[in-house]
């Protein structure tokens, strides 16, 4: 199996000598194309650092991070920005919608800068917000806002959809719907979706689960038959 995402001996080290802290300590894993990956770990385990490195918002100290053949660990700031722009769709825990833009405009804000962007209206239609297109974020519920956020990420037509605690600010049922949306998108579009979470209960829905603890990979498991989100309870 050819790795689409390949992380090899990646370290993130702060300080030196006595004060040295290793947020990521020799992390390696490979993800195949089209996998829904759940990166799970407790607070402070180093999963956020990993997310930042994968998302091109931070660089590792040593090791390689190869995304679809591009070694982003060697990238400078400008290249990282281009990488974020073209390759990453980001879904935030707190949605991070621009309050002054309508749903459609929030989606367009991202698609404007991506080279192979999808049609914003179509994407919003796909996430079930056809009727909320002209509403401002303050007029939407939390779930709806997160769907706009997902639509914004999808519309860029990125290589990876990176989701940071996507259900963290949502109630149980809404959270489930959002996860379902992500799972369906992954399986229908054959794009890689990476969900970073502390909620181990959602592990069964992933095609690939990576558990992080104390900066290291504790478990790296490819799930043969992932469970549909509807069947998971927590």
């Amino acid at each position, binding site marked *: 199996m050819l790795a689409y995402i390949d992380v090899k001996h990646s370290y993130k080290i702060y300080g030196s000598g006595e004060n040295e802290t290793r947020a990521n300590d020799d992390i390696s894993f490979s993800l195949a194309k089209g996998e829904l990956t759940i990166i799970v770990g407790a607070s402070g385990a180093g999963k956020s650092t990993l997310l930042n490195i994968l998302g091109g918002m931070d660089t590792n100290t040593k090791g390689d991070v190869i995304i679809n053949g591009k070694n982003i660990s060697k990238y400078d700031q400008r290249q990282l*920005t281009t990488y974020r722009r073209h390759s990453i769709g980001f879904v*935030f825990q707190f949605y991070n919608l621009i309050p002054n833009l*309508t749903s459609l405009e929030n989606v367009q804000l991202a698609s404007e800068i991506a080279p192979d962007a999808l049609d914003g209206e179509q994407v919003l239609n796909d996430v079930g917000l056809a009727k909320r297109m002209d509403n401002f974020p303050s007029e939407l519920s939390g779930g709806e806002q997160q769907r706009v956020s997902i639509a914004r990420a999808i519309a*860029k037509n990125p290589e990876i959809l990176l989701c940071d605690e996507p259900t963290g600010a949502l109630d149980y049922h809404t959270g489930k719907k959002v996860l379902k949306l992500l799972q369906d998108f992954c399986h229908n579009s054959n794009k890689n979706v990476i969900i970073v979470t502390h909620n181990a209960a959602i592990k069964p829905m992933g095609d690939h689960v990576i558990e992080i603890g104390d900066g290291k990979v504790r478990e790296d498991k490819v799930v043969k038959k992932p469970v549909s989100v509807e069947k998971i309870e927590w």
Partner: protein
Amino acid sequence: MAAMKKTLNQNIFREFKFSFARFISIVILISLGVYVLVGLKVTGHDMRITGNNYYTAHKMADAYVEGNTSFTRADQKYIKQLPHVSKAEFSTYRDAVIKNTHTTVRLLSNTSQISTNNVTKGRLPKAANEIALNNSERGKYQIGDSITFANNKNQSKVSGLKQTTFKIVGFVTSSDYINKQNLGTTTAGTGELNSFGVITKAAFKNYQPTVAKLDYNNLRGSSYDNEFENQIQQNVNDSQRGLNHRANLRQAALVNRAKHKINQQATELKRQQTALNKRRTQLSASASRLSATQRRQANRPIKAAQARIDQAKQKLQTTSNKLNSGNRVTYQIQSRNDYNLGYNEYGENSRKIDLLSNSFPIIFFAVAILVCVITMSRMGEESRIQLGTLRALGYSKFDTMKVFLSYGFLSGLIGTGLGAWIGTTFLPTQIFKTYSANFSVPDFHALISVKWILISLLISLVCTTVPGAYVAGRSLKEYPATLMLPKKPKRGAKILLERVPFIWKRLSFNYKVTFRNIFRFKLRMMMTILGVMGCTALLITGFGMRDSLSGVNTKQYHEIVHYDIISIFNPSATTKQKQAYERAVNNTSGIKYQTQIYYEGLTAKPRATNNQSVSLMVPKQPTKLNQFITLQNPDSNKAIRLSNNGAIITDKLAHLTNTKVGGHITLTNSTGKHYRIKVSGITQMYVGHSVYMNANYYHHRFGKRVAYNANMLKLNNRSDGNINRVASDLNQQPAALTSIQSNGAKKMVDNLLGGLNNIVLIITIAASALAFVVLFTLTNINVSERERELATIKVLGFYPGEVIMYVFRETFILTFVGILVGFVGGAWLHNFIMQTLPPDNAHVDLTLLWTNFATSAGLTIIFAFMVMFLMASKIKNIDMLGALKGVD
């Protein structure tokens, strides 16, 4: 508890430390506002106080009576008894030229009680051969030097003085001559008085007083106070009629004495003629007895005697004619404002600054305050969570608000202190310095104006403490628990522009976002526009003022006034002298055109302002007048002609006296006689008031035929040096009285311009600083309020330039709008200031040049870019990871 408070104080201290840029911004804004307000408010007052101190130190005369003939003892007694005169002192003077130069000097007899000459170095003259010179000559002469004066022909002979060479024993200052350059007009040299010196009465040949210096006992207040000035003017007005009567008596006495003398001479001549006739008869009786040669010899003395007698008769006839037609005796009384050119100009200048102080600082202060209010309310909002936490911890409302109070109080106090300090010391001194180039008033008194400092402190403190405390206080009404939750971001909303699909659809996505954001924060939008508008308007006004004033000279001397000299002669000089004068005029090299006119200095008394000097000119050949002066309608530039039933007056005079074509204007001559003159036209003029009429209308109005007394000259070479040369050459003629140089007004405008240039510079720098701080502060708030938004778009993959433009597109649009509105505001402010700022006798072109707009807009745009570069690093440093965190 004490420990807790200590931590609270620590927290307050941190607030200062972490938001140092904001703190500095507020301090700068407040100090700029206070600086300009206090500075301009006190300067005019300081100048008047300084002037008043100077006048008091010199016991300056309240009024002057000046005679063109010396006062008799009875006259002196009469003057001493004029109403309200507490003291009178008499003196006289002669004007001379420093030998081998063009420098004209007034040699005054020293006075000890009124208008004294105060010694700055050395001492006052004691002996007849000693002189104390004007203090401004200290660079050129030293004590112990001797100085020689000459008449207009450069001969060491000055009429009325016993000697012409004096030993310099000291240097003095005087309140009567406070101008440094043009001290007045004179019959000596070039016609412009350059300096003065003090000599003893003994230095005069047959000392007779011609000037009376008066002190009044009914004055209240100090120099330049309305009450003070009006009282002097009233005293002066009340006394003129009586003085005219004295002058008439003196005239009659002089005529009688002269008549008596003429009669005596006539009798004597008659006697001689009779004797001669007798001899002639005797001679003819004895002629037969004489040879032809003897007869011739005897006849010769008789012929010579006859010639002598004829000549004497002729001379007697002219003297007698002159008596009837000659210069009448005048005793003119004038207030400080009229007898003292410098006093008037100095006061005018100080009032111009008062005028500026009523417009400029208000804009500065308003802009500064608005920005402070916004900044401090923003601070109140930012600290929401902190407030909630402190409240939850059990601190009192006052304790939690302490941070705003101390922050606001300190910034307001420091800002006011700084502004008041520079405003009290630097600004007035700088402005005064520019004027002291023209006035010899030293020792500037920078007074601390408690009133204005307190007013600015009050306003500043209100603006720095209240908004923060108010916003925080409003939040404190909520429960700590809700307070600790972030406030929901301001809702987005459709803007009006979206209802115009025609435009909205054409906007690119980025501009849609920009316009939404602009209208999301309406208050900040207004503030940015207002701030930029204020600054652009101030810059336009500053540059425009300078150009408008400097345009006066170019326009005046290129478009309106073409003559260089009006050479005034004495129409009652002997025919021979007049012929010599005419020859001198005709022989002067380099004259392009010349014409004869009648010239007289009159006074207009507009109700709203001081007395205005007006030049009356009656051309001998009205058709040639346009070679010397262009008479044209100020609006249409259409030529105006002199008519038989009215006079043409200059536009500023018409404006001051509120006269229209067809109306009347009253002018007063030196003896206080009024003439009501019909206005047949109003002509364009930039500096000085004039009235032009033809000989017919003059005859009609003044009741006598015009006696031409001046030559108007236009020279080929219009340089100052050449004008001075021609003027002093002509003044050498005994028939010449004085020369009026058209460039006198030029110098006055140049001086005023010099003074204003510095003020303009100060205002421009302050306005630039204001523009910068305003843009910086507002952009800073904009960026910090939207840090999360900016972090998000960074995560989305916006390049740094795109992120900056995401914010600055708004700033630029608002700056652009602000500049456009500023154009309108600047034009208005400039118009407002230029209508009142120029001297009363100057008319200033109010049109702004396109360069004024371009420079001001250019500067504002440069500031916007500078702010952008400063902000770029702040935006660059916004941490993307901040977007991942919860809202805080």
